[in-house]
């Protein structure tokens, strides 16, 4: 009976015990064999032995043990990387990188580990990252520890703090140390640690401080934690405000982009173009069409869309000016009605030719994601790009008006049409080009908007009232006014949203502008002098 039992036991343990590894390096063989065994203390030792080895792949092996990709082929006695391929596993020799073909699962033996081994492996990996020459990798390692701190990992940090040269990594390391000290049983130690973390925006710090402020046995620690918390909350609030400001700036940039073409046609030429919104819409649709032509290249097609949209909207604008507006100069109300008619026609045209539904416009990769500033503040790239783009367009337009012959002529015609004509400026041509310029900018704005909102036939309608508000608020005939007006209204809108709600904020802005116009009918930056009269 006893024999039988032993025989059975042998039968079960034999494969395990009998697993042999032949790598050609006896040290490695021993370590791997121990790792395949069932003695966890021996496994711990074997891990250290493995890492002490000089081979460059050693950390990958350890990682492979952790996630199960490193196994042993029982018959061939080789350590292999496995990759699941259907029901079979593809095996590659871990030392020679020789492809060994496909095997059934039962031909492979896994390194069995427990939680304690897992912790050890993580520490080993963290230590590797902490010793990495790349500061970004070091920082990532520290952050990983911060998210999931354990005493042995913190112990890894201690000797490395003194050697650290990168300030950002050093900050992060000190933060982890301080967090660890927050749990220290020693009261002065805790107080010191609280001082050390004050001002940090890490959620882990805040959680720890909240715990201290509520549960710490020492009242002085409680008080000091509460103070630190308040300080942190203040900073978080400031960050929140910065974020709102950022949102406001990006909304304002959209407004400026939408309005700046109008500022030219309305401000410089005195023409009310109600079809301006539809010119923006055409720009957005141009983006869509170019993306359809170049599938799979959203980035390139977006960049190409900018000149294309400028040309499309610009030429439609010139057509409107030559076909309609030039017969109506000096009759602003009639111009308003006629261009409104054009806007209806353009809208319906898009509905009939393309689709009455919204069309999908994809965002290129570089537009997604966000810029991380700190734990309480990160800025999305698409908004950042919009702000940047708006500034570029503004500067470009400004230079065109200030530095080029066309700009000079535009300003001359705007100030005194008769005199400009007498000086040899061909007013009709300048009118057409100015209108084309303003319309082209509207098209460019459409490209930007296509990245932010739905592209549909009603896109223009949503922006026309806002654009007029911006131009009128900023002061007609003044590009700076449009910039300040647009950014100002955008920021004001975003700051009101938290307590008023999005729709109410918009209504309040409209009401504000209506009242403002009554107080200062010529806007923020009025044109002055006798020429502005009547």
């Amino acid at each position, binding site marked *: 009976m006893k024999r039988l039992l032993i025989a059975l036991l042998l039968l079960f343990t034999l494969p395990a015990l009998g697993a042999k590894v032949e790598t050609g390096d006896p040290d490695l063989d021993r370590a791997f064999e121990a790792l395949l065994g069932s003695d966890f203390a021996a496994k711990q030792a074997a891990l250290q032995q493995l890492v002490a080895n000089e081979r460059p792949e050693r950390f990958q092996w350890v990682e492979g043990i952790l996630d199960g990709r490193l196994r042993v082929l029982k018959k061939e006695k080789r350590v292999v990387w496995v990759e699941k391929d259907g029901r079979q596993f593809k095996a590659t020799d871990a030392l020679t990188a020789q492809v060994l073909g496909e095997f059934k699962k039962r031909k492979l033996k896994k390194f069995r580990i427990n939680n304690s081994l897992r912790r050890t492996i993580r520490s080993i990996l963290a230590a590797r990252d902490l010793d990495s020459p790349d500061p970004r990798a070091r920082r990532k390692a520290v952050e990983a520890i911060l998210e999931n701190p354990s005493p042995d990992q913190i112990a890894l940090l201690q000797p490395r703090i003194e050697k650290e040269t990168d300030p950002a990594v050093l900050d992060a390391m000190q933060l982890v140390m301080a967090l660890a000290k927050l749990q220290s049983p020693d009261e002065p130690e805790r107080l010191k640690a609280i001082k050390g973390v004050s001002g940090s925006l890490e959620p882990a710090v805040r959680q720890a401080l909240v715990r201290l402020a509520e549960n710490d046995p020492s009242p002085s620690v409680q008080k000091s934690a509460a103070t630190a918390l308040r300080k942190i909350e203040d900073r978080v609030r400031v960050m929140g405000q910065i974020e709102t400001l950022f949102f406001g700036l990006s909304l304002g940039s959209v407004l400026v982009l939408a309005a700046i073409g109008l500022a030219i046609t309305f401000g410089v030429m005195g023409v009310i173009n109600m079809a301006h919104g539809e010119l923006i819409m055409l720009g957005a649709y141009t983006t869509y069409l170019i993306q359809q032509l170049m599938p799979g290249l959203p980035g390139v097609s977006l960049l190409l869309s900018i000149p294309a949209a400028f040309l499309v909207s610009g030429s439609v604008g010139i057509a409107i000016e030559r076909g309609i507006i030039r017969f109506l100069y000096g009759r602003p109300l009639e111009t308003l009605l006629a261009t409104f008619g054009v806007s209806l026609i353009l809208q319906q045209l898009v509905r009939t030719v393309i689709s009455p539904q919204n069309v999908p416009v994809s965002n290129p990769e570089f537009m997604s994601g966000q810029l991380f500033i700190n734990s309480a503040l990160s800025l999305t790239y698409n908004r950042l790009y919009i702000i940047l783009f708006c500034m570029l367009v503004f500067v470009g337009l400004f230079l065109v008006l200030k530095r080029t012959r066309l700009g000079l002529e535009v300003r001359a015609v705007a100030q005194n049409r008769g005199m400009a004509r007498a000086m040899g400026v061909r007013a009709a041509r300048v009118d057409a080009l100015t209108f084309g310029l303003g319309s082209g900018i509207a098209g460019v704005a459409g490209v930007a908007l296509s990245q932010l909102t739905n592209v549909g036939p009603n896109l223009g309608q949503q922006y026309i009232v806002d654009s007029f508000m911006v131009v009128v608020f900023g002061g007609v005939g003044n590009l700076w006014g449009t910039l300040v007006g647009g950014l100002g209204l955008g920021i004001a809108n975003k700051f009101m949203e938290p307590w008023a709600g999005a729709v109410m904020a918009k209504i309040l802005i409209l009401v504000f*502008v209506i009242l403002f116009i009554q107080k200062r009918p010529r806007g923020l930056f009025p044109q002055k002098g006798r020429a502005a009269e009547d």
Partner: protein
Amino acid sequence: MFLLRPLKGDRGGQIFVALLVALVIAVTVMANLPQENPLHLSSYTVTLLGKYLTYALLAVALDLVWGYLGILSLGHAAFFALGGYAMGMYLMRQIGDRGVYGNPELPDFMVFLNWHELPWYWQGFDQFWFAMLMVMLVPGLLAFVFGWFAFRSRVTGVYLSIITQALTYALMLAFFRNEMGFGGNNGLTDFKDILGFSLQSDATRLGLFIASAVVLLLGYLACRAIVASRLGRVAVAIRDAESRARFVGYRVELFKLAIFTFSAVLAGIAGALYVPQVGIINPSEFQPLNSIEVVVWVAVGGRATLYGAVLGAVGVNYAKTWLTGVLPDAWLFALGALFVLVTLFLPRGVVGLLRREKEQ
């Protein structure tokens, strides 16, 4: 015929009044013919005609401020819609406990939003007289407050047009909000009866049509009385040479304020007659497009004639009904083209065209 005195010297107006009277008589007779009779007018047609008449009143109101005073309001549909909402609130209260939720006091949408009490501004709307007062008072008050600020600070021309558009846009956004207590997106609808008469019955519909015709006639005569008086001449003087009018001693802002407010009240009344006939009022009535459409009615008909506004409103809306039936996609093309062609080739509208032919 004291009432008809303003028509003296207004040939177009005389024709208009004669046609309107003839229309009312004809519709009354034809609607009462037996169904088999080929001349029988369905109540659908009667209601459609009634709707046109309310539009005509709105157009007359706009023509008074645009044609005679030179204020191009791009927000007149807002006053129309406000009058409509006031009427709609009365009609909602008349539903009583016949709503889906059967709440005797609260309209369905409030029950749906879990409101337990009627908001203060809904009080009193169960009384017809109070609702009618509000139909005039709310648009009038808004126009007064708006005009008080705008005209005193001498906002004129396109600036004024743009802020009137902003006004109606802001109202649209506001009425879309459920929290406003006017039914949000869906607005007010499912009306049952008015003054105890069922809104579904042919007789009520005919009655509403006749009421619209009578109010249009009265509104026209009132506007005509203003236009024919010295007040009307002052208005035109302000339109043509505002600062001269000031130096002659007229308080331009008060004249603008008075006429603008009166016009808004007329628009509100038109809206109040519109709502029971179409059976719904929702925030899309505040759309800037609606207000601009009114402008095009007046432009097509011929501004500063009053009867031209009527002609334009009925004509354009008839074309709209017809065209949206035949070629739904073509309507916006046609409307857009109408804007462009009228401003380019018919600055004085159809009436101007007819007059020119007579002059030649």
